[in-house]
Structures are given as structure tokens and as C-alpha cells.
């Protein structure tokens, strides 16, 4: 039984209707986004189901997942915190921002916090270079921009997200050094 098809019959029909009838493969990426939105990553089962819907092999679907950086084949942090350290952002302090943030959280780029809340990643230009330092947060399949950041501002946001997503306080290395921003609301 194809769970994806069973769960989203209308959505999948809408997706397929965007492309010529004999070009079902074109639906691969939208379907991957749909599956990822459900589980936060693309599972083995989802790969097979998408292959079935689009009429291509599971290997082909897996190679698409492997090629694009926003598709993930394993569950990691609930929040993928992706900091741009590309040229224009680096010129405005993004690398220093990332280093400080990592120190406070006690994880390095590519690592996930022990409570499973955050995975930090270094990414390429996000088309917001005038608002550096910035990160995007990928939660499930949703991507949100957070511009003009300081480590303190980011930690504040993470505090509220930690409460909302896993119901426990945010783990930081040096809480006392992380003063909330002026006017920032937190307990």
C-alpha cells in the first residue's frame, strides 16, 4: 500500500497535473518535498513510493535526494540551522558569528545537539547578502529566513523554539554569558 498516495491523494493529483501526462518523472521533486514535510527527511519507504508514483527506479529517486542539498536521507536535528558563510556574508562577519554561536551551543558545523533539537550547517549564498549575518531554519520541509543576527539574538530564538518543539529548555555551554538582547522577550 502506497502510504504517501493514501495520505495525500488530492495533493498528489494536483502535483501530477502540473506536468504533461507522459512526464510523470517531473513530479519527483515536489513529491520529495511532500514526503520530507511529513517526516523531516526522506525515508527508504518514501523513496519507493515516489518511484512507484513517477514510474522511475528507487535508485533514480535516491540519486535526486543525494544531489540536492535540501533533501535529507536521515533524520537529524528538528531545526537545521543553516548559516550562510559565503563571500558577501563573510565580508560582514558571518564566519565570526558562526564560530561564536557554535561555541555557545557546544556543537560544530555538521553536528547535532544531544537533545536532537539543532543541527548546525554552513551553507552557500541565500540571496540575502545585505542582511548578514543570517541563517535559514529548515524545519520539516519549511524554510524560514532570520536576518541581521547576533549570537544572542539567535540563542533567544532557539530558546523559544526549544520550548515549542521539544518542551525542554535550550542547552547551551555558557548560559550566563548569553545575555538576552535589549528589548528581547524571554523569561
Amino acid at each position, binding site marked *: 500500500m502506497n502510504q504517501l498516495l493514501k495520505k495525500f491523494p488530492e495533493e498528489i493529483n494536483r502535483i501530477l497535473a502540473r506536468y504533461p501526462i507522459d512526464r510523470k518523472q517531473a*513530479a519527483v521533486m515536489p513529491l520529495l518535498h511532500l514526503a520530507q514535510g511529513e517526516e523531516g527527511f526522506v525515508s527508504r519507504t518514501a523513496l519507493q513510493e515516489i518511484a512507484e508514483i*513517477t514510474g522511475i527506479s528507487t535508485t533514480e529517486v535516491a540519486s535526486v535526494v543525494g544531489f540536492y542539498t535540501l533533501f535529507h536521507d536521515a533524520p537529524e536535528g528538528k531545526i537545521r540551522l543553516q548559516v550562510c558563510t559565503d*563571500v558577501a556574508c563573510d565580508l560582514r562577519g558571518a564566519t565570526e558569528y558562526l564560530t561564536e554561536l557554535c561555541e555557545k551551543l557546544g556543537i560544530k558545523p555538521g553536528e547535532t545537539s544531544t537533545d536532537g533539537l539543532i543541527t548546525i550547517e554552513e551553507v552557500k549564498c541565500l540571496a540575502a547578502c545585505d542582511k*548578514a549575518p543570517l541563517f535559514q531554519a529548515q524545519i520539516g520541509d519549511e524554510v524560514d529566513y532570520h536576518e541581521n543576527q547576533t549570537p544572542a539574538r539567535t540563542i533567544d530564538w532557539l530558546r523559544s523554539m526549544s520550548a515549542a518543539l521539544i518542551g525542554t529548555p535550550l542547552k547551551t555551554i555558557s548560559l550566563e554569558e548569553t545575555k538576552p538582547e535589549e528589548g528581547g522577550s524571554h523569561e
Partner: protein
Amino acid sequence: MSELILLRHREVAGLNQLKTYIADGGFETWKKVVTSRKPEEVLNDVKASGLRGRGGAGFPTGVKWSFLPNNIWPHYVVANSDESEPGTFKDRELLEFNPYLFIEGLMLTSFAVQANDAYIYFRGEFSQIAKKFDERLAELTAKGLLGDALFGTNYSLRIHTHLGAGAYICGEETALLESIEGRLGQPRLRPPFPAVAGLFDKPTVINNVETLANIPYIMEKGVDAFRKNGTEKSPGTKIFSLSGRVKKPGNYELPLGTTFRELIFKHGEGIINDAKVKAIMPAGASSTLIPATDAALDTPMDYESTTAIGSPLGSASVMVLDETVNISRVINNTVHFFSHESCGKCTPCREGNFWMSHISDRIESGKGKKDDIELLNSVATQMQNKCFCALGEFSTMAVVSGLQHFRADFEARLES
């Protein structure tokens, strides 16, 4: 400051709401064109306007449309909303704050080449924008501005969104088509060109968001009004994305032909801490590094003049470097970018960028030897003219020009 055409939302609040856009005269041109103009008239107007592609190559837009054969159907139009060149953030502003101008441009373009289906390819990071677009397109369909038998004519148009998932190379038009078709974003061999065999092997026009956003003005106000801004060969206004070590980074819509000096010192309000400007990268990470001499600063930013001082204008993402910046670090960043974004299809680009990042890392970490500088230069020059697509060529530009003009910056990093 000249009239704001593309960034009009900065003058008219709420232009990203359909009712405001319509109240401002939006979609009147669309209705008029579909009900009273011939497709070839639209094509001829755009040709006569001299509008050139804003996505990087500066190719004349009307000429590109005219390449579509009239004996192969259907035709498709694809809007390139992949915006991924480091330093470029103009399309995103349009998509968020003046989306209907772009949509109307996409509609007019589709009508000109008689496409009944058009696609907007968004980079994966724009998922929120894409979602909003699905709502906007549904609303336009409900209002009868999109859909079947428009305004009682026999012309129909549907617009679909397609969301990428993080890959710079998908901005390259043929890789973008591969990505819509559900494959890896790797460029296609040309010919055939997309105008003849593009999306789903059918004749296809691919244009950048900003290019398309210029069309409604041309069709509403006319060719002469459009040509009032800019230069003879580079007419119109352009959005310049200004970033790096300036006081006021941001998007500035200015006539093509405005000087670097005006952009950086008047609009950008000069350099942080009033430091000395050192170099300019006019086309993002794909750019040549241009030493910021007086002559360079006084160069007009149009397609010809910028090329004449060593770098294409590209999509006009002007990154400014000042005297506090070491060029070796900038190069280290660009080679890592290209190494990460190389699609892996051709060997010179894949291997060349791998080696350039290794050598550059060695230099940056203070473990480089004198020979490494020559080695870096040699890898870059050997890649030139051997890559399958422009990405590989782009990756060598900053390296070769950086070593040519700022060698001392690299030498300062060497093992003492």
C-alpha cells in the same frame, strides 16, 4: 534618483496585494494585449526596446524569443527564480514585494510566444515565497486573469510553480530544465538550444525574474519610454545588488550606465569606517576581481563598459572589498563555493575546483610554500576553456585576477 519601475513597491505600499496592484493599474496591460494585440507585436516591441537579459548573460530578450520555431508545439516559458549567485538578492525582493509585476511580465511573455503553460522555478530556499505564489496564482485564476479562454478570446494560460532543493547549478538554464524534469541538475549539451528543444523537448523561453518584470512597462508605456533610461546598447534601469564592505548594502534600481562610484559612494554611502576601497566584484563570486582604481570607479555599469574593464556585468551583484580584506581569504571562499556547487559532470571543473580549494586551504592556513601560488594559478588557467559549462569557467575568474593584481596578499599568508 530616477523613477522606480521595478522597485515601485517602495513607493506604493502594499503592492504585493492583488487589490493594490490592480488599483495601481496592474493587469490592464495584460487585458489590453490579450484582447487587442497580436503576439508578434509584443515580440517586436520587446525587440525594439533593446531589453537585455538580467540573469547574467545580457542577451537581447526579444531576439531570444524570436528563435522559437513556429512549426513545433507546444511552446513553454520558464521563469528563472533560482537566484543563487553569491551577492545577488534582487529577484527575492521582487518576488516578495512586487510579485504581480513579475507575474504580469511572465504572462505577456507567454502570450508573445503563444505558450499555454509557463513554469516558475524557485530555488528550494524560497519555499515560503513559492507557497505564497501558489495562492496568488490560484487567486488570479479565480479572477479570470489566468486560465482558459481569457477575456473571451481563445488564448489560455496556466502558470505552475516548481521548487528546487538547493543547487547553484540549477540557475544555469539547461540544468534548470533537467531539474524540472525530475533529474539531477546537470547542464545539457548544446545544440539543440532550449529555444528549439527545451522543456520536455519543446521550444522554450527561459528568462530571469527581473527581465520579465520589465515587460509590463515596455508594453504599457512604450519602447521610447523604456529607452529613456540607460544607454543606447544597454537600455533601461537595472537593480544593482550592492554588498560587502559598504555602509548601506541593499538593492538600488538605477539606470544602466550609472558609475560604480555613484553606486558605492552615493547610494551605498561609502565604505565602513571610511576605509579605502580595494577591489570590486561586479558579478558576484563568478566575477573577475577588479582593482578599485579611479578609472574603474568612474566606469559606467553597462554591459559593454564593465566588460571592457575585465568583468562581465552579470546580474549586477556588486561586491565591494576594502583594504581590511585579504584577497587570499576571498579566493578561499569562492573556490570552496564552486567546489561545493560543481555538478560533477565534467572532469576539469570537478577536479580543478577540488585542487584549487586544497591549495587555497594550504595557503590560508599558513602552511603554503611559494610554489603553491604558482600551482594555484596553473590549475586555474589549465581549467579555462575546458569546462562543459560556464560554472567551471566562472570558478577561475577570481583566482586568476586575484593572483594577478593582489599577489602580495597571498605571499603574506605563506609559511615564513
